[in-house]
């Protein structure tokens, strides 16, 4: 089972969005946005883009609040939505970089301070991580950074549990090869 459609973002705006949705979505933002931005920044490397993706996810949630059948799963929706947004942004960036010569915007350039905080070795690992195919990248980050179980990662990625297992295995193997090559 694979789902690349974002259940939140891809739905049309719902004119029945209740007024209390604003309050509830804002509260969810206070609680979960920072963690989701961190996840998106790991995926994309750019905090501004990461915040855009997370804003999009919450906006989609707000627009479709009334049509969400299971509001207990809203965090899962948001996580899946952020992953989907990162997938699109990463793809757009890679494609754009190759197709259009994207010259860096100021916010894309990692500051010297940030660079020092992360460290050369870690930057190398994150760069290799971002070079992985999307599914492997997501599986590795969800399993090793967020510490999700295979089932939880499968839910976030909208794939079967076995897919998470194989993607994690392949991602780890590719990373090992890439990091060894670079040493």
């Amino acid at each position, binding site marked *: 089972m694979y789902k690349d*459609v974002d259940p939140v973002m891809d739905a049309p705006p719902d004119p029945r*969005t209740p007024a209390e949705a604003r309050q509830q979505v804002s509260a969810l933002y206070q609680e979960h946005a920072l963690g989701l931005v961190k996840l998106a920044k790991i995926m994309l490397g750019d905090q501004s883009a990461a915040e855009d993706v997370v804003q999009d996810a919450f906006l989609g949630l707000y627009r479709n609040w009334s049509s969400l059948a299971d509001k207990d799963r809203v965090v899962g929706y948001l996580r899946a939505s952020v992953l989907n947004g990162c997938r699109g942004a990463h793809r757009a960036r890679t494609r754009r970089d190759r197709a259009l*010569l994207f010259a860096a915007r100021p916010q894309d350039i990692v500051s010297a301070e940030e660079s020092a905080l992360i460290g050369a070795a870690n930057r190398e690992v994150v760069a290799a991580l*971002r070079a992985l195919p999307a599914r492997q990248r997501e599986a590795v980050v969800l399993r090793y950074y967020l510490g999700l179980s295979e089932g939880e990662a499968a839910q976030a990625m909208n794939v079967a549990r076995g897919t998470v297992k194989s993607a994690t295995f392949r991602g780890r193997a590719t990373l090992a090869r890439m990091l060894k090559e670079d040493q």
Partner: protein
Amino acid sequence: MSVEDRVRTATEATAATVGQIRPLVLPDEASAARPGRLRFRRVSRMGGGWLVPAAAAAAVIVLAVTLVSVRTLTTAGHAPVTAAQSADRVPEYYAAITKSALTAPDDVTIAKTATGTALFRVKPPAGDTFAVVSAAGDDRTFVVAVAPFSGPSFPWTTVVWDLVRVRPDASGYTLTRLRVPAQPADTVIDGLAVSPDGTKLAVLSQQASTVTGTEPGPVTLRVYSVATGQLLRSWQTRAGQIEYTTTPGQDDQNSTISWQADGQGLAFDWQATTQTKITKTGAATGENGPLEVRRLDLAKPGTDLLADSTPVVSIQGWVNGICSALQPTADGNGAVCGTEYQVALAQGATTCSDTPEPLSFHAYSGLAGRYRVLYTVPPAKAVKGKCGNGTADVLWASPSGSTVVGVISTQYIPGSKISSAVGVVSNGRWTPLPASVLLPGHVFSATGFAF
């Protein structure tokens, strides 16, 4: 330290750099309820498709053959364009942005179209990477953008230009740094085209927006002399004339420009928007205009990109599939494109029930957006019940648009097996070209591939 531990350490270090984030901006109730503001999104399905990175990765060429690393810097002249070369025949050679390893800088491979044989692999100067390539009409001359290489997920800074010229007997090539001014770091380059005679370079660019929620800068089309780097002509949009984009400062991914076959005109695609502020939070208002192909006559004066250009194609809406990218044809009268589809899982379903739309190549002409189908992939290849994604991309088109070199890629989930093929479309038929190989993770794009 294990790979897992290295990933944990690195990701936590990266996450720790995130401090303050901006507050949530929600639209007011009125705008939240406004249906479908973006009624005609050129790249709407590109961002949602999972196939794109690997998709037309068929365009990545085998590098196992003749790896020549000669780099002779000369200013040898180019061969003149002949009538035969400007006709509807597929060029003899092409250049592609290729990669020897995922973490390596990109190089350029010159290959023979008919056999798929790689003739030369041109390595970028130390510390740089090649980025985008464009071909002249003499079938021997290519201009390549060069950017500093800082890793596989680099943001490029300034961009300079190199000229790759295959010797007439194909025994080698020359690589020359052009004097065309470097593009500044706050510029997005939307299109690149070398004139048919190889003497001029056209660059379509846009000043990036550095603040989310603000308008991108004006779009500028500049024509430079390849020999001297001198700026020959320049056109620019005026304040308020902005093109539809999905993200401020990032123009659509598929803007293309083409020289007319006689070298006296340029065509570019354009989709105006009345959105006053394009924000990632969806708070924009306004509508997008039709997708146009506009033509500039170099013999006429003027510096206004829109006022001094003439629309030659206007498309109000897609028919039989959404174009992945619109490429103006060299006759200055039309455009060609390939379509794309995405069949995804409905909420709560376990299998996809829809049959994918057939992929096809289209030609558009006229202000009424008249279109004709050049070729449709046989529907027998579409697998009902499986989630899938497919793209057809135009790599090259003859001046009239009647002959096209394209790549068709499909992927079905589960399994994720990607099927790609490069071929020539002519007279409603598809003739495969010798297969390429895929380098996992390598990304294809039409402007990473030049005939």
